[in-house]
Protein backbone atom coordinates (compact mmCIF):
# COMPACT_ATOMS: atom_id res chain seq x y z
CA UNK A 1 0.00 0.00 0.00
CA UNK A 2 1.12 3.58 -0.72
CA UNK A 3 4.69 2.52 -1.40
CA UNK A 4 5.14 5.41 -3.80
CA UNK A 5 4.81 7.89 -0.93
CA UNK A 6 8.11 6.77 0.55
CA UNK A 7 11.26 8.28 -0.94
CA UNK A 8 13.51 5.56 0.38
CA UNK A 9 11.95 2.96 -1.92
CA UNK A 10 12.56 5.23 -4.90
CA UNK A 11 16.18 5.70 -3.87
CA UNK A 12 16.63 1.98 -3.30
CA UNK A 13 13.95 -0.09 -5.05
CA UNK A 14 15.58 -3.35 -3.97
CA UNK A 15 15.26 -2.53 -0.26
CA UNK A 16 13.02 -4.93 1.63
CA UNK A 17 12.37 -3.36 4.99
CA UNK A 18 10.89 -5.80 7.49
CA UNK A 19 12.03 -4.14 10.73
CA UNK A 20 9.07 -1.89 11.40
CA UNK A 21 8.83 -2.95 15.01
CA UNK A 22 12.13 -1.16 15.53
CA UNK A 23 11.34 1.92 13.49
CA UNK A 24 9.45 2.76 10.32
CA UNK A 25 10.22 4.55 7.09
CA UNK A 26 8.92 8.09 6.66
CA UNK A 27 6.58 9.23 3.90
CA UNK A 28 7.63 12.29 1.95
CA UNK A 29 4.86 14.40 3.49
CA UNK A 30 6.30 13.83 6.95
CA UNK A 31 9.82 14.75 5.89
CA UNK A 32 8.47 17.78 4.04
CA UNK A 33 6.60 19.00 7.10
CA UNK A 34 9.83 18.95 9.09
CA UNK A 35 11.79 20.66 6.34
CA UNK A 36 9.05 23.28 6.10
CA UNK A 37 9.43 24.13 9.76
CA UNK A 38 13.19 24.43 9.41
CA UNK A 39 13.09 26.40 6.18
CA UNK A 40 9.92 28.49 6.41
CA UNK A 41 8.97 29.24 10.00
CA UNK A 42 11.65 28.30 12.50
CA UNK A 43 10.88 29.90 15.86
CA UNK A 44 10.43 28.76 19.43
CA UNK A 45 7.04 27.69 20.74
CA UNK A 46 4.98 29.48 23.40
CA UNK A 47 7.22 32.54 23.47
CA UNK A 48 7.11 35.02 20.67
CA UNK A 49 4.70 37.72 19.64
CA UNK A 50 5.72 37.61 16.03
CA UNK A 51 3.99 35.88 13.16
CA UNK A 52 6.21 32.86 12.62
CA UNK A 53 6.26 32.15 16.36
CA UNK A 54 2.48 32.17 16.41
CA UNK A 55 2.51 29.87 13.43
CA UNK A 56 4.75 27.49 15.38
CA UNK A 57 2.33 27.56 18.33
CA UNK A 58 -0.59 26.77 16.07
CA UNK A 59 1.27 23.91 14.44
CA UNK A 60 2.67 22.51 17.69
CA UNK A 61 -0.57 22.72 19.65
CA UNK A 62 -2.48 21.51 16.61
CA UNK A 63 -0.61 18.21 16.84
CA UNK A 64 -1.88 17.79 20.40
CA UNK A 65 -5.40 17.85 19.00
CA UNK A 66 -4.45 15.32 16.34
CA UNK A 67 -3.03 12.95 18.98
CA UNK A 68 -6.18 13.41 21.00
CA UNK A 69 -8.26 12.34 18.02
CA UNK A 70 -5.93 9.46 17.19
CA UNK A 71 -6.43 7.86 20.60
CA UNK A 72 -10.06 8.99 20.88
CA UNK A 73 -9.50 11.14 23.90
CA UNK A 74 -11.58 14.15 24.91
CA UNK A 75 -9.02 16.60 26.28
CA UNK A 76 -5.90 17.87 24.55
CA UNK A 77 -4.30 18.84 27.84
CA UNK A 78 -4.04 15.16 28.70
CA UNK A 79 -1.50 14.77 25.89
CA UNK A 80 2.13 15.46 26.80
CA UNK A 81 4.96 15.40 24.27
CA UNK A 82 8.08 13.54 25.37
CA UNK A 83 11.19 12.24 23.65
CA UNK A 84 9.67 8.80 23.17
CA UNK A 85 7.77 5.97 24.84
CA UNK A 86 10.75 5.24 27.10
CA UNK A 87 10.74 8.78 28.45
CA UNK A 88 6.96 8.62 28.88
CA UNK A 89 7.11 5.45 30.97
CA UNK A 90 9.98 6.82 33.04
CA UNK A 91 7.89 9.92 33.78
CA UNK A 92 4.97 7.75 34.87
CA UNK A 93 7.15 5.65 37.16
CA UNK A 94 9.46 8.30 38.62
CA UNK A 95 7.13 11.29 38.45
CA UNK A 96 3.89 9.68 39.54
CA UNK A 97 4.21 6.16 40.96
CA UNK A 98 7.13 7.08 43.16
CA UNK A 99 4.86 9.46 45.07
CA UNK A 100 1.70 7.39 45.02
CA UNK A 101 2.94 3.93 45.93
CA UNK A 102 4.29 2.72 49.22
CA UNK A 103 6.53 -0.14 50.26
CA UNK A 104 4.78 -3.48 49.76
CA UNK A 105 2.49 -2.26 46.98
CA UNK A 106 2.50 -4.60 44.01
CA UNK A 107 3.03 -3.83 40.32
CA UNK A 108 2.02 -6.49 37.80
CA UNK A 109 3.96 -6.78 34.55
CA UNK A 110 5.01 -9.75 32.38
CA UNK A 111 8.26 -11.26 31.21
CA UNK A 112 7.48 -10.30 27.65
CA UNK A 113 7.52 -6.56 28.29
CA UNK A 114 10.08 -4.34 26.61
CA UNK A 115 12.99 -3.27 28.82
CA UNK A 116 11.46 0.20 29.08
CA UNK A 117 8.45 -1.26 30.90
CA UNK A 118 10.52 -3.43 33.22
CA UNK A 119 13.67 -1.61 34.27
CA UNK A 120 11.99 1.53 35.69
CA UNK A 121 9.77 -0.69 37.86
CA UNK A 122 12.69 -2.80 39.07
CA UNK A 123 14.58 0.36 39.90
CA UNK A 124 11.65 1.81 41.82
CA UNK A 125 11.24 -1.51 43.65
CA UNK A 126 14.85 -1.32 44.82
CA UNK A 127 14.44 2.30 45.81
CA UNK A 128 11.20 2.10 47.77
CA UNK A 129 10.27 -1.51 48.32
CA UNK A 130 7.36 -1.92 45.94
CA UNK A 131 7.06 -5.45 44.62
CA UNK A 132 7.21 -6.29 40.91
CA UNK A 133 5.28 -9.46 40.07
CA UNK A 134 5.09 -11.22 36.71
CA UNK A 135 1.73 -12.33 35.38
CA UNK A 136 2.20 -15.95 34.21
CA UNK A 137 1.89 -16.34 30.45
CA UNK A 138 -0.34 -18.96 28.87
CA UNK A 139 1.40 -20.17 25.69
CA UNK A 140 3.22 -16.80 25.70
CA UNK A 141 -0.06 -14.91 26.05
CA UNK A 142 -1.66 -12.82 28.76
CA UNK A 143 -5.12 -14.09 29.71
CA UNK A 144 -7.62 -12.16 31.79
CA UNK A 145 -7.90 -15.22 34.06
CA UNK A 146 -4.20 -15.10 34.90
CA UNK A 147 -4.37 -11.37 35.53
CA UNK A 148 -7.33 -11.88 37.86
CA UNK A 149 -5.44 -14.56 39.76
CA UNK A 150 -2.54 -12.21 40.37
CA UNK A 151 -4.62 -9.30 41.62
CA UNK A 152 -4.91 -8.88 45.37
CA UNK A 153 -5.48 -5.99 47.77
CA UNK A 154 -1.83 -4.93 47.45
CA UNK A 155 -2.01 -4.65 43.63
CA UNK A 156 -1.72 -0.97 42.77
CA UNK A 157 -0.49 -0.99 39.17
CA UNK A 158 -0.80 -3.15 36.07
CA UNK A 159 1.63 -2.09 33.35
CA UNK A 160 1.52 -3.88 30.00
CA UNK A 161 2.27 -3.45 26.35
CA UNK A 162 -0.96 -3.56 24.37
CA UNK A 163 0.93 -5.50 21.68
CA UNK A 164 4.29 -7.10 22.48
CA UNK A 165 7.38 -6.42 20.45
CA UNK A 166 8.69 -9.98 20.13
CA UNK A 167 5.66 -12.09 19.27
CA UNK A 168 3.20 -9.32 18.49
CA UNK A 169 0.41 -10.74 20.63
CA UNK A 170 -2.37 -8.37 21.64
CA UNK A 171 -3.39 -8.33 25.28
CA UNK A 172 -7.02 -8.25 26.45
CA UNK A 173 -6.65 -4.58 27.32
CA UNK A 174 -10.33 -3.75 27.57
CA UNK A 175 -10.98 -6.49 30.12
CA UNK A 176 -7.87 -5.64 32.09
CA UNK A 177 -8.84 -1.97 32.02
CA UNK A 178 -12.23 -2.84 33.47
CA UNK A 179 -10.61 -4.96 36.15
CA UNK A 180 -8.28 -2.10 37.05
CA UNK A 181 -11.12 0.38 37.25
CA UNK A 182 -13.16 -1.88 39.54
CA UNK A 183 -10.21 -2.45 41.85
CA UNK A 184 -8.68 1.01 41.96
CA UNK A 185 -5.54 -0.13 40.12
CA UNK A 186 -3.54 2.25 37.94
CA UNK A 187 -3.47 0.91 34.38
CA UNK A 188 -0.35 1.78 32.39
CA UNK A 189 -0.26 0.77 28.73
CA UNK A 190 2.76 0.76 26.45
CA UNK A 191 1.29 1.50 23.04
CA UNK A 192 4.55 1.48 21.10
CA UNK A 193 3.59 -1.54 19.00
CA UNK A 194 -0.17 -0.97 18.93
CA UNK A 195 -0.88 2.71 18.29
CA UNK A 196 0.93 2.63 14.89
CA UNK A 197 -1.02 -0.41 13.73
CA UNK A 198 -4.56 -0.32 15.05
CA UNK A 199 -7.40 1.82 16.33
CA UNK A 200 -7.16 2.60 20.01
CA UNK A 201 -9.67 4.27 22.31
CA UNK A 202 -8.22 5.23 25.68
CA UNK A 203 -11.66 6.04 27.11
CA UNK A 204 -13.26 2.76 26.17
CA UNK A 205 -10.22 0.79 27.32
CA UNK A 206 -10.04 2.55 30.71
CA UNK A 207 -6.36 3.36 30.23
CA UNK A 208 -4.87 5.63 32.92
CA UNK A 209 -1.52 6.20 31.24
CA UNK A 210 -0.48 5.46 27.65
CA UNK A 211 3.01 5.77 26.14
CA UNK A 212 4.08 5.59 22.49
CA UNK A 213 6.73 6.81 20.06
CA UNK A 214 6.40 8.76 16.82
CA UNK A 215 9.17 7.00 14.93
CA UNK A 216 7.36 3.66 14.99
CA UNK A 217 4.36 5.25 13.24
CA UNK A 218 5.96 6.98 10.23
CA UNK A 219 7.07 9.97 12.31
CA UNK A 220 10.50 11.25 13.26
CA UNK A 221 12.77 9.90 16.00
CA UNK A 222 13.03 11.72 19.32
CA UNK A 223 9.33 12.35 19.85
CA UNK A 224 6.81 10.46 21.88
CA UNK A 225 3.57 10.86 23.70
CA UNK A 226 2.48 10.48 27.28
CA UNK A 227 -1.25 10.33 27.71
CA UNK A 228 -2.60 10.44 31.25
CA UNK A 229 -5.96 11.16 32.80
CA UNK A 230 -6.05 14.76 33.94
CA UNK A 231 -6.37 14.09 37.65
CA UNK A 232 -3.32 11.82 37.43
CA UNK A 233 -1.19 14.17 35.34
CA UNK A 234 -2.09 16.95 37.79
CA UNK A 235 -0.31 14.90 40.42
CA UNK A 236 2.65 13.88 38.27
CA UNK A 237 5.69 15.64 39.67
CA UNK A 238 7.72 17.12 36.82
CA UNK A 239 10.89 15.05 36.41
CA UNK A 240 12.44 17.82 34.35
CA UNK A 241 12.41 21.44 35.51
CA UNK A 242 13.29 24.57 33.60
CA UNK A 243 11.93 27.00 31.08
CA UNK A 244 8.49 26.77 29.63
CA UNK A 245 7.04 24.86 32.58
CA UNK A 246 7.13 27.39 35.40
CA UNK A 247 4.67 30.23 35.97
CA UNK A 248 6.72 32.15 38.54
CA UNK A 249 9.63 31.56 40.86
CA UNK A 250 11.77 33.63 43.20
CA UNK A 251 15.06 33.42 45.01
CA UNK A 252 13.33 32.17 48.15
CA UNK A 253 12.66 28.93 46.30
CA UNK A 254 9.00 29.52 45.72
CA UNK A 255 8.06 27.96 42.41
CA UNK A 256 4.74 27.82 40.74
CA UNK A 257 4.34 25.56 37.80
CA UNK A 258 2.27 26.18 34.72
CA UNK A 259 -0.89 24.22 34.13
CA UNK A 260 -1.07 21.04 32.08
CA UNK A 261 0.42 20.06 29.74
CA UNK A 262 3.16 22.75 29.66
CA UNK A 263 4.20 21.84 33.20
CA UNK A 264 5.44 18.50 31.94
CA UNK A 265 7.28 19.84 28.89
CA UNK A 266 10.29 21.68 30.28
CA UNK A 267 12.74 23.28 27.89
CA UNK A 268 12.35 23.93 24.19
CA UNK A 269 10.44 20.93 22.92
CA UNK A 270 11.25 18.92 19.82
CA UNK A 271 9.11 21.23 17.70
CA UNK A 272 10.14 19.85 14.34
CA UNK A 273 9.59 16.34 15.62
CA UNK A 274 6.14 17.11 16.97
CA UNK A 275 5.17 18.72 13.67
CA UNK A 276 6.44 15.61 11.89
CA UNK A 277 4.34 13.47 14.21
CA UNK A 278 1.29 15.54 13.30
CA UNK A 279 1.90 14.94 9.65
CA UNK A 280 2.34 11.21 10.29
CA UNK A 281 -0.99 11.08 12.13
CA UNK A 282 -2.73 12.85 9.24
CA UNK A 283 -1.22 10.31 6.90
CA UNK A 284 -2.16 7.28 9.00
CA UNK A 285 -5.73 8.46 9.49
CA UNK A 286 -6.06 9.06 5.77
CA UNK A 287 -4.93 5.54 4.94
CA UNK A 288 -6.97 4.19 7.85
CA UNK A 289 -5.58 2.23 10.76
CA UNK A 290 -8.05 -0.59 10.19
CA UNK A 291 -6.86 -0.88 6.60
CA UNK A 292 -3.26 -0.98 7.76
CA UNK A 293 -4.03 -3.67 10.33
CA UNK A 294 -5.90 -5.75 7.79
CA UNK A 295 -3.04 -5.44 5.29
CA UNK A 296 -0.46 -6.59 7.85
CA UNK A 297 -2.54 -9.56 8.95
CA UNK A 298 -2.99 -10.58 5.35
CA UNK A 299 0.74 -10.32 4.68
CA UNK A 300 1.49 -12.48 7.68
CA UNK A 301 -0.98 -15.16 6.61
CA UNK A 302 0.55 -15.17 3.15
CA UNK A 303 4.07 -15.41 4.57
CA UNK A 304 3.30 -18.14 7.11
CA UNK A 305 1.65 -20.28 4.47
CA UNK A 306 4.88 -20.17 2.43
CA UNK A 307 7.41 -20.25 5.27
CA UNK A 308 5.75 -23.30 6.80
CA UNK A 309 6.68 -25.28 3.73
CA UNK A 310 10.39 -24.65 4.23
CA UNK A 311 11.60 -27.58 6.38
CA UNK A 312 14.28 -25.88 8.47
CA UNK A 313 12.33 -22.74 9.40
CA UNK A 314 10.98 -22.64 12.95
CA UNK A 315 8.19 -20.12 13.56
CA UNK A 316 7.30 -19.13 17.12
CA UNK A 317 4.11 -17.11 16.68
CA UNK A 318 2.33 -18.70 13.75
CA UNK A 319 -1.16 -18.45 15.17
CA UNK A 320 -1.02 -14.93 16.52
CA UNK A 321 -3.03 -12.66 14.25
CA UNK A 322 -0.86 -9.63 13.56
CA UNK A 323 1.94 -8.40 11.33
CA UNK A 324 4.89 -9.91 13.17
CA UNK A 325 6.78 -13.15 12.58
CA UNK A 326 9.35 -14.49 15.04
CA UNK A 327 11.44 -17.28 13.51
CA UNK A 328 14.79 -18.97 13.25
CA UNK A 329 16.53 -21.13 10.71
CA UNK A 330 17.03 -24.37 12.62
CA UNK A 331 20.52 -24.59 14.18
CA UNK A 332 21.51 -21.16 12.90
CA UNK A 333 22.13 -18.25 15.28
CA UNK A 334 19.63 -15.47 14.64
CA UNK A 335 22.29 -12.87 13.95
CA UNK A 336 23.80 -15.04 11.23
CA UNK A 337 20.36 -15.31 9.64
CA UNK A 338 19.95 -11.53 9.73
CA UNK A 339 23.37 -11.03 8.15
CA UNK A 340 22.47 -13.58 5.48
CA UNK A 341 19.17 -11.83 4.69
CA UNK A 342 20.93 -8.49 4.59
CA UNK A 343 23.02 -9.86 1.73
CA UNK A 344 19.74 -9.86 -0.24
CA UNK A 345 18.75 -6.40 1.04
CA UNK A 346 16.21 -7.84 3.43
CA UNK A 347 16.21 -6.03 6.78
CA UNK A 348 15.10 -8.07 9.79
CA UNK A 349 15.93 -7.78 13.45
CA UNK A 350 17.88 -10.48 15.28
CA UNK A 351 18.24 -10.80 19.00
CA UNK A 352 16.10 -10.66 22.06
CA UNK A 353 14.36 -7.42 21.03
CA UNK A 354 14.98 -5.80 24.41
CA UNK A 355 12.78 -8.43 26.04
CA UNK A 356 15.64 -10.17 27.78
CA UNK A 357 13.61 -12.11 30.31
CA UNK A 358 11.10 -13.50 27.83
CA UNK A 359 13.61 -16.28 27.18
CA UNK A 360 12.68 -17.65 30.60
CA UNK A 361 9.25 -18.27 29.14
CA UNK A 362 9.71 -19.25 25.50
CA UNK A 363 13.01 -21.12 26.02
CA UNK A 364 14.48 -19.41 23.00
CA UNK A 365 16.89 -16.61 23.70
CA UNK A 366 17.18 -15.08 20.29
CA UNK A 367 14.95 -14.90 17.26
CA UNK A 368 14.72 -13.16 13.93
CA UNK A 369 11.78 -10.83 13.80
CA UNK A 370 9.89 -9.69 10.74
CA UNK A 371 7.47 -6.84 11.39
CA UNK A 372 5.33 -5.56 8.54
CA UNK A 373 3.87 -2.15 7.82
CA UNK A 374 1.60 -0.67 5.21
CA UNK A 375 4.24 -0.42 2.48
CA UNK A 376 5.28 -4.08 2.57
CA UNK A 377 4.15 -6.33 -0.26
CA UNK A 378 3.57 -9.97 -1.14
CA UNK A 379 6.37 -9.68 -3.70
CA UNK A 380 8.78 -8.86 -0.89
CA UNK A 381 7.61 -11.94 0.97
CA UNK A 382 8.17 -14.04 -2.17
CA UNK A 383 11.76 -12.82 -2.25
CA UNK A 384 12.21 -13.60 1.47
CA UNK A 385 10.88 -17.10 0.88
CA UNK A 386 13.14 -17.62 -2.12
CA UNK A 387 16.18 -16.59 -0.10
CA UNK A 388 15.25 -18.73 2.91
CA UNK A 389 14.62 -21.73 0.68
CA UNK A 390 18.22 -21.67 -0.44
CA UNK A 391 19.64 -21.07 3.02
CA UNK A 392 21.74 -24.23 3.02
CA UNK A 393 24.34 -21.91 1.50
CA UNK A 394 24.07 -19.50 4.40
CA UNK A 395 27.67 -19.79 5.59
CA UNK A 396 29.01 -19.17 2.10
CA UNK A 397 27.35 -15.80 2.37
CA UNK A 398 27.81 -15.06 6.06
CA UNK A 399 31.44 -16.14 6.45
Amino acid sequence: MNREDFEIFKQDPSLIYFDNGATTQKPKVVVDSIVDYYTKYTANAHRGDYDISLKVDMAYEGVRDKVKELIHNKKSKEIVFTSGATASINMIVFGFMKYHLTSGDEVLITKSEHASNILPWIDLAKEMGIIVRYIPLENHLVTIENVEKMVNERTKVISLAQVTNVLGDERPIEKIGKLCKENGIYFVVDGSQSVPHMEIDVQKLNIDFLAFSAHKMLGPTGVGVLYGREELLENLKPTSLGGGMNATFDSEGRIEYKSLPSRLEAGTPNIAGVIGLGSAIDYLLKVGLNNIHRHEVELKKYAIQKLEKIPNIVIYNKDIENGMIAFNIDKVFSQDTAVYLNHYHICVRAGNHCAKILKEDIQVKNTCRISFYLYNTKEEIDELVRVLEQSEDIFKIVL
Partner: protein
Amino acid sequence: MDPNVRRQILLDNYQHPTGHGLKEDSSYIKINTNNESCIDNLDIMYKIKDGRIEDICFDGEACAISTSATSIMIQKLIGKNKEEAQRILDNYEAMLDEREYDKELLEELNAYDEIYKQPNRKKCALLPFESLRKIINKL
Protein backbone atom coordinates in the same frame (compact mmCIF):
# COMPACT_ATOMS: atom_id res chain seq x y z
CA MET B 1 43.77 -15.07 2.66
CA ASP B 2 41.97 -17.06 0.00
CA PRO B 3 38.22 -16.66 0.59
CA ASN B 4 37.57 -20.40 0.36
CA VAL B 5 40.30 -21.21 2.86
CA ARG B 6 39.02 -18.49 5.16
CA ARG B 7 35.47 -19.76 4.99
CA GLN B 8 36.59 -23.32 5.65
CA ILE B 9 38.58 -22.29 8.73
CA LEU B 10 35.65 -20.33 10.13
CA LEU B 11 33.09 -23.00 9.33
CA ASP B 12 35.20 -25.80 10.86
CA ASN B 13 35.72 -23.81 14.02
CA TYR B 14 32.06 -22.81 14.20
CA GLN B 15 30.69 -26.30 13.68
CA HIS B 16 33.34 -28.15 15.71
CA PRO B 17 34.76 -25.59 18.08
CA THR B 18 37.74 -26.30 20.31
CA GLY B 19 37.04 -26.19 24.03
CA HIS B 20 33.27 -26.34 23.74
CA GLY B 21 31.52 -27.12 27.01
CA LEU B 22 32.08 -25.68 30.47
CA LYS B 23 33.90 -27.58 33.21
CA GLU B 24 32.74 -28.17 36.77
CA ASP B 25 36.09 -27.21 38.20
CA SER B 26 36.61 -24.40 40.68
CA SER B 27 40.23 -23.90 39.62
CA TYR B 28 38.90 -22.23 36.42
CA ILE B 29 38.10 -18.53 36.26
CA LYS B 30 34.74 -17.95 34.55
CA ILE B 31 34.08 -14.83 32.56
CA ASN B 32 30.83 -13.88 30.85
CA THR B 33 31.20 -11.85 27.72
CA ASN B 34 28.26 -9.89 26.48
CA ASN B 35 28.55 -8.31 23.10
CA GLU B 36 27.52 -4.68 23.03
CA SER B 37 24.96 -5.63 20.41
CA CYS B 38 23.37 -7.55 23.32
CA ILE B 39 22.92 -10.76 21.37
CA ASP B 40 26.01 -12.93 21.72
CA ASN B 41 26.45 -14.37 25.15
CA LEU B 42 29.44 -16.59 25.95
CA ASP B 43 30.88 -17.94 29.16
CA ILE B 44 34.60 -18.51 28.83
CA MET B 45 36.62 -20.37 31.51
CA TYR B 46 40.37 -20.09 31.98
CA LYS B 47 42.66 -22.33 33.97
CA ILE B 48 45.90 -20.65 34.89
CA LYS B 49 48.90 -22.47 36.30
CA ASP B 50 52.43 -21.24 36.96
CA GLY B 51 51.92 -18.08 34.94
CA ARG B 52 50.60 -19.88 31.88
CA ILE B 53 47.16 -20.55 30.44
CA GLU B 54 46.74 -24.26 30.98
CA ASP B 55 43.23 -24.66 29.58
CA ILE B 56 40.28 -22.68 28.21
CA CYS B 57 36.72 -23.82 27.62
CA PHE B 58 33.49 -22.03 26.72
CA ASP B 59 29.77 -22.30 26.15
CA GLY B 60 26.89 -20.03 25.22
CA GLU B 61 24.87 -18.72 22.34
CA ALA B 62 26.75 -16.76 19.74
CA CYS B 63 27.04 -16.16 16.03
CA ALA B 64 29.37 -17.98 13.68
CA ILE B 65 31.99 -15.25 13.88
CA SER B 66 32.13 -15.09 17.70
CA THR B 67 32.05 -18.83 18.11
CA SER B 68 34.76 -19.55 15.56
CA ALA B 69 36.92 -16.74 16.94
CA THR B 70 36.60 -18.23 20.43
CA SER B 71 37.63 -21.63 19.13
CA ILE B 72 40.70 -20.32 17.32
CA MET B 73 41.62 -18.07 20.24
CA ILE B 74 41.58 -21.10 22.54
CA GLN B 75 43.92 -23.00 20.22
CA LYS B 76 46.28 -20.04 20.11
CA LEU B 77 46.35 -19.23 23.82
CA ILE B 78 46.74 -22.56 25.56
CA GLY B 79 50.26 -22.82 26.96
CA LYS B 80 50.96 -19.10 26.61
CA ASN B 81 52.31 -16.82 29.35
CA LYS B 82 51.33 -13.21 29.89
CA GLU B 83 53.74 -11.66 27.38
CA GLU B 84 52.87 -14.16 24.67
CA ALA B 85 49.13 -13.77 25.23
CA GLN B 86 49.48 -9.98 25.22
CA ARG B 87 51.33 -10.08 21.90
CA ILE B 88 48.60 -12.15 20.33
CA LEU B 89 45.92 -9.81 21.68
CA ASP B 90 47.76 -6.68 20.51
CA ASN B 91 48.37 -8.03 17.03
CA TYR B 92 44.84 -9.33 16.67
CA GLU B 93 43.44 -5.94 17.64
CA ALA B 94 45.83 -4.25 15.25
CA MET B 95 44.57 -6.48 12.44
CA LEU B 96 40.93 -5.69 13.22
CA ASP B 97 41.79 -1.96 13.32
CA GLU B 98 43.61 -2.23 9.96
CA ARG B 99 46.97 -1.38 11.52
CA GLU B 100 50.35 -3.08 10.95
CA TYR B 101 50.52 -6.48 12.60
CA ASP B 102 52.52 -9.69 12.72
CA LYS B 103 50.77 -11.99 10.25
CA GLU B 104 52.85 -15.02 11.07
CA LEU B 105 52.12 -14.80 14.75
CA LEU B 106 48.35 -14.85 14.26
CA GLU B 107 48.22 -17.93 12.01
CA GLU B 108 44.56 -18.98 11.66
CA LEU B 109 43.36 -15.77 13.32
CA ASN B 110 44.22 -14.18 9.98
CA ALA B 111 40.86 -15.53 8.89
CA TYR B 112 39.39 -12.33 10.35
CA ASP B 113 41.65 -10.01 8.40
CA GLU B 114 38.77 -8.60 6.36
CA ILE B 115 36.24 -8.33 9.12
CA TYR B 116 36.84 -4.58 9.31
CA LYS B 117 34.73 -4.35 6.16
CA GLN B 118 31.71 -5.27 8.30
CA PRO B 119 31.93 -3.00 11.34
CA ASN B 120 28.99 -4.67 13.08
CA ARG B 121 30.83 -7.98 12.97
CA LYS B 122 34.10 -6.62 14.30
CA LYS B 123 32.58 -6.74 17.77
CA CYS B 124 31.77 -10.40 17.23
CA ALA B 125 35.36 -11.18 16.29
CA LEU B 126 36.62 -9.29 19.33
CA LEU B 127 34.16 -10.84 21.77
CA PRO B 128 36.27 -13.77 23.05
CA PHE B 129 39.31 -11.53 23.40
CA GLU B 130 37.37 -9.28 25.78
CA SER B 131 37.59 -12.16 28.25
CA LEU B 132 41.35 -12.46 27.74
CA ARG B 133 41.70 -8.78 28.54
CA LYS B 134 39.95 -9.41 31.86
CA ILE B 135 42.21 -12.25 33.00
CA ILE B 136 45.54 -11.31 31.50
CA ASN B 137 46.75 -9.60 34.65
CA LYS B 138 46.20 -12.76 36.58
CA LEU B 139 48.87 -14.51 34.50
